[in-house]
């Protein structure tokens, strides 16, 4: 049981202007884990993810990916990312679905090299996994929000990453495709051993699928197995999140999907 460390954060803090939004976070993700990241709106989840990806620089603390400091990290083809509200891109952008997904191959292809037929084939393959292969030559801006989101999921999968980071990837995706998506994640995680980190407000579903859960609200309030998390009573949860967010957690473990 000596799984590789995929991500290591130690004592990471971050502030945008004055207010600290991530405080003294230490977090370690091992290979093969499926980590669900939950917390109320504005609790710093997206910020934490941007820190992990080097899109923001921490004001304090250390971050490493695959045992390399984030500053000098180079193996970007091992990382897949679906950002929150990926469809807030310039919707008038003249690009087809295929062109967008191929973008996910940039890290794998590398500088001064051109895309080959293989990149195209892999892109179509990725689009098949999200059932969007019929839209290959459609303009990305002319798709519905949920369809766009599925295209961005394909873009994250197309480089065959070892670590997949998903920030509310299923927002706007219909129920059937959400279910398919979770099946896909489970398959990637169990069969291919891909490490997953996913932010979700659908606590019921995420704790059902994830192996581990992290609850954060500026700092980490809980990090452990999802079984442990599911065993909490409502009172425990209220204490976990503090008073400010009491109303936001309810009945996550009596069948109904709780919303956070």
């Amino acid at each position: 049981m000596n799984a590789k460390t995929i991500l290591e954060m130690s004592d990471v803090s971050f502030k945008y202007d004055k207010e600290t939004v991530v405080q003294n976070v230490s977090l370690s993700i091992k290979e093969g884990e499926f980590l669900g990241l939950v917390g109320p709106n504005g609790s710093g989840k997206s910020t934490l993810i941007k820190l992990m990806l080097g899109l923001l620089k921490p004001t304090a603390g250390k971050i490493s990916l695959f045992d390399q400091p984030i500053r000098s990290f180079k193996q970007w083809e091992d990382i897949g990312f679906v950002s929150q509200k990926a469809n807030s891109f310039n919707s008038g952008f003249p690009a087809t679905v295929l062109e967008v997904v191929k973008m996910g191959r940039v890290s794998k292809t590398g500088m001064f090299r051109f895309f080959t037929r293989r990149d195209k084939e892999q892109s179509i393959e990725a689009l098949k996994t999200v059932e969007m292969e019929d839209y290959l030559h459609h303009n990305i801006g002319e798709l519905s929000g949920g369809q766009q989101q599925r295209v961005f999921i394909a873009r994250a999968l197309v480089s065959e990453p070892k670590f997949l980071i998903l920030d509310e990837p299923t927002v706007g995706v219909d129920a059937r495709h959400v279910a398919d998506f979770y099946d896909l994640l489970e398959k990637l995680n169990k069969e291919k051993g891909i490490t997953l980190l996913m932010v979700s407000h659908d606590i019921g579903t995420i704790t059902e699928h994830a192996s581990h859960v992290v609850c954060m609200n500026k700092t980490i309030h809980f990090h452990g197995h999802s079984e442990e998390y599911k065993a909490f009573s409502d009172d425990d949860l209220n204490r976990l999140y503090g008073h400010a967010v009491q109303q936001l957690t309810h009945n996550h473990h009596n069948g109904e999907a709780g919303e956070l």
Partner: protein
Amino acid sequence: MIESFLTYEFLQNAALAGIMIGFVSPLLGVFIVVRRLSLIADALSHITLTGIAASLLVEKKVDAIQEWNPVYMGMAFSVIGAVLIEKLRKVYKHYEELAIPIILSGGIGVGVILISLAEGFNTDLFSYLFGSVTAVSRTNMFTVLVITIAVIIVVTLFYKELFVLSFDEDHASISGVNGKLVHFIFIVLVALVIASAMQIVGILLVSALMTLPVAAALRLSKSFKQTIGLSIFFGEVSVITGLVTSYYLSVPPGGTIVVTAIMILTLAIIYKKVSSQLSLKGETV
């Protein structure tokens, strides 16, 4: 026309430079437009004017310098302007677009002072403002050729990177793209192309050649590659039609080129309207 084209070197220079400019301006223009940087072209063209004014002033005041080619000084100022815009964009993180009016007005302000110090300009100034078919020397034409080749090589080599950077800067960063470097190379090329195109279309209209063909192409294309292809096609049609009419009507080519580009844009908008209405009707029938 053919006869005079073969007789007069200046016409050949203008035509060849025009064809190259009609290619590279819309090519870079596509990236400029989708990244919402259209106004940068304007700022850089105005600071090019400052460079030209400085060059003409030096030529006039310093006896040792006789025939300075003002285009080079224009290029130098344009590149410096591009670097300054990038610096300013960092200073005003939340108001990045402020960099543009600062450089634009600064360029004009200094330019006007230099022009007055040189005790006003002659016809030269007019041709720099609105373009000219006679202003392109053989040397200038070769300079444009070198810049054209550089642009084509860089865009081909960095096509992926430029595309990702234009679509989604975060994704570019996590794809290992050195966004700062690619953007810097790109903006320097834009500065050089602006100073080149200025000779034909003039300072005031140079940004039109970078944006109008792209605006028309955007109405008609689905993919990014198609947008690039159509933009270049519209750019070439505008430049060639514009140069020919400019020659016959004896008006500055800047005017005729831009008017042609606007006609193409209008046609593209109408075509899109009509064709989408037709397809709507087709569906309801």
